[in-house]
């Protein structure tokens, strides 16, 4: 019972912490670019304002258009519940392993892309086409990277993976280094950040995610935006906890939970800063450079796996 309650709290933490992370990245980025920037809690204000506005829907839109925000949001929220953030050993972790998690994102993306094509404007179709192209290259790289970890740990269950890594004395596996690099590249692509997509612009040449949700407004837009922030949060938590698992609570004692919370907050803030630095230093790529970028991610993950098989299996 306590486990389920904790799982609920953790899901809430993830869901309501996500806008802060997005705001934090934006704030740091602004500071780095010598701008004042909105405070990190600005996304909460934006979401609240959007929730309070009326929803305007195009006449040509079908029910898919109105269903999609709910599907995207509920699937991403469910994904939040299986990601170990503060503690492992929660009962929800057994609902889905990491392959199912990838499946959740794929389901959300499927509806997002359909919604983009629904109204019949050229931008939507363009965004859907680009999103599905990028995703179809990112997904295999991501799964290959995850398989590298899974083969070391002998499990695809996220909680078991993190638990195994905490128990082990620290050891720098070459396969992990490669997989980490590959997964970072994939995470950048999947969450629609620079250099693959630019979440801050509405230019025809650069849009991917924004092009698909261009027709949305009001509460629908709020759900879509929140869903995107959740995705960034989930990927960040996964990267932090898989590759730097220290601090994650292994039991439900209040002290260790508190340490877990502190550790993940610190890790997320650092990761957000790193992301902001990277986004400030890099330029957005052309769409047809993205395959090479994701190819690099795939090769890194493949190298990780090969080095696992060659160097680490005994």
């Amino acid at each position, binding site marked *: 019972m306590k486990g389920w309650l904790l799982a609920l709290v953790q899901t809430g933490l993830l869901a309501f912490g996500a806008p802060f992370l997005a705001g934090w990245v934006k704030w740091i980025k602004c500071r780095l670019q010598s701008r004042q920037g909105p405070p990190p809690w600005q996304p909460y204000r934006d979401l609240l304002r959007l929730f309070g506005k009326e929803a305007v829907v195009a006449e040509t839109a079908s029910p898919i258009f109105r269903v999609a925000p709910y599907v995207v949001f509920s699937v991403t929220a469910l994904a939040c519940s299986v990601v170990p953030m503060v503690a492992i050993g929660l009962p929800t972790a057994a609902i889905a392993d990491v392959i199912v998690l990838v499946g959740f994102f794929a389901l959300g993306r499927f509806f997002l892309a359909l919604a983009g094509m629904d109204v019949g404007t050229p931008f939507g*179709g363009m965004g859907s086409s680009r999103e599905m192209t990028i995703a179809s290259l990112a997904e295999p790289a991501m799964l290959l990277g995850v398989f590298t970890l899974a083969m070391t740990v002998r499990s695809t269950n996220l909680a078991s993976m993190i638990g195994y890594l905490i128990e082990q004395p620290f050891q720098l596996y070459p396969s992990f280094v490669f997989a980490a690099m590959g997964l970072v590249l994939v995470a950048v692509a999947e969450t629609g950040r620079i250099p693959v997509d630019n979440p801050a612009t509405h230019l025809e040449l650069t849009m991917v995610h924004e092009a698909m949700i261009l027709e949305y407004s009001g509460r629908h837009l709020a759900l879509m935006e929140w869903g995107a922030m959740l995705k960034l949060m989930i990927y960040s938590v996964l990267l932090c906890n898989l590759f730097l698992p220290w601090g994650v609570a292994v039991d439900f004692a209040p002290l260790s939970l508190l340490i877990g919370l502190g550790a993940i907050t610190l890790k997320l803030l650092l990761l957000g800063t790193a992301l902001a630095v990277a986004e400030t230093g890099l330029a957005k790529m052309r769409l047809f450079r993205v395959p090479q970028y994701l190819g690099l991610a795939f090769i890194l993950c493949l190298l990780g796996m090969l080095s696992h098989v060659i160097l680490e299996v005994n």
Partner: protein
Amino acid sequence: MPLSLAFLAVGAALLSGLLPLVRPGSNAVARRIAFPLLGISGVLGMVAGGMALGSAEPSRIVLPVGLPWLHSHLQLDPLAGFFLAVVSLVTLVAAIYGPAYVREYEQGPQPLLPLTLFTGLFVAGMQLVLLAADAFSFMIAWELMSVTSYFLVAYQHQHEVNRRAAFIYLLMAQVGGLFILLGYGVLSGFGHGFDFAHMAAATLSPGWSSVAFLLAFVGFGMKAGLVPLHVWLPQAHPVAPSHVSALMSGVMLKVAVYGFIRFSYDLLGGIHWQWGALVLFVGSASAILGVLYALMQHDLKRLLAYHSVENIGIIYMGLGLSMIFAGTGHPALAALGLIAALYHCLNHALFKSLLFFGAGVVLQQSREHDLEKMGGLIRRLPVTATCFLVGCISISALPPFNGFVSEWLTFQTALQGPVLENNILGALIPVAAAVLALTGALAAACFVKVFGICFLGLPRSEKSAAATETTAGPLAGQIVLAALCLLFGVLPTWTVGQLEHIARLFFPGGMPETTAHGWLWLTPVSSQVASYGAPLVLLGIGLAWVLAWLWMHPRRRRFPVRRVPAWDCGFGSLNARMQYTATAFTMPIRRIFRPVWPITESYRTPTAEEQGGRYQLKIGDWAWLKVYEPIGRLLLATARRMAMIQGGNIRAYLAYSFFTLIVLLLVVSL
């Protein structure tokens, strides 16, 4: 008991074909007799198959028909029972879907009779293949299945493409049949008998058993549509009537998979891991090439046919993994791979039939084959669109629908690669898993294209703007299949428990851990390694949905949704030509994977008088260019050379006979 029910099923299918012959002139009689009987056959077959799946002891019977020294052996064990149930299920749904669908053909130039006649015989042929327990009756039933489906493909023979597709189909079916026959020949030569019991008891040297395996692999692979033997499939499936396409693509290919499993697991036994590696490789190639070719198709049914190549590839990947583990002494993992493959057989039968049914409605109601001319059909065909969406989600392997579960099981099997002693194999298997991931992601892209272009947006032609929803029968068929897609996705533990009966035939230990944690959790290897709580996933999505809805509800009251024209950037109202087309949608993928297709692309800039330029894009299939056309050329050239000896001179012919006789006598005397 199950066997006699199965006989009744076959009998009903035969009757459904033959009975309308009493009034050959009447289309209505043909329709009213054939489809109910087909439905009865489906129900009986499902019951028989379900009973056989659960029973430990296979039921056998020997009928005194056939060759003088060889009676027909028939049997029904869990493996055959499972496939019988799948075939019969789709038959039943086709019988619900069919009557209203074929009404249109009554206005066509052909009478309905050949369609119902050969459909009945075709179903009976498929059921008999599953019941056969000796090579002779197997081949008879197999040929019945192949030849009758040839007539179904050729049904609308006034079209040139149909005749050509049917011819190619018949040709490849016969070549494939020959390979299967040779495979059985090898087995019966060592087993001293044509019935399966003798063949299974045969002891073969590794060399001969590999020869038999390769013959069966090619023969059944030809029917199943593995790359590069797939070329008949995208030609034959689109031209047949849609309920026949569903039967051919949804279940006939599964009969080939059944034959392959029966041949290699049951009759041949003693599986070598090298065979598994070959099967895994060919399966992976089929999966990835199938989906890439499908992406470039804009004819709805041809696209679905290419997806059959993909899904058969996924099934063979599961089988290949299973054979690798079986050959290296890991029976529990081999059972897991086999179950993943069988589960995907079931899933593919469900969602592919669903998609073909949906495509049939779309084609009939919008009178368009080309995706580029559809659009906006979701408002015209709401129920069909919803069911088709379920099919799209299932085939794209997204949770919580059924396609996801079998692919997940295949992933889990592949991830157990490190238990192998062989390091190279251990590294290659996860790469196969990455190929599977790429396949799934590309399939999702493809079905976003299909659904988005076909059902969403604005209508791209007047015909598709005028489409109307179809009648009750076709809708009921689709709804049943859509519900089953969800059901088998949410209750994987139960399904896997049933499929375990089959795995126990070949791997007596079974998979102790898989279903050990109750119906909520599916744990393929152990609960530590991986678990999937499909019912909880559905519940979780529902819960999050309800929470979001409750959160929104007061706002919905205050601010109801306002419908306005879409923003058109000030260029005048939105029209259908502004939308992304299917060609444009897949353009980035076409550019990234360019070498995969033989592409000819041409663009003519408009002259002063002309209104617009002309862009032409042709996408072929390398298998034709690189495999079949050279073979065809070689055959023709050889035939031309051979024709030299055909001088028309009777004395020369007598001399040929004489020398042949001498050579034969020499051979015999040696």
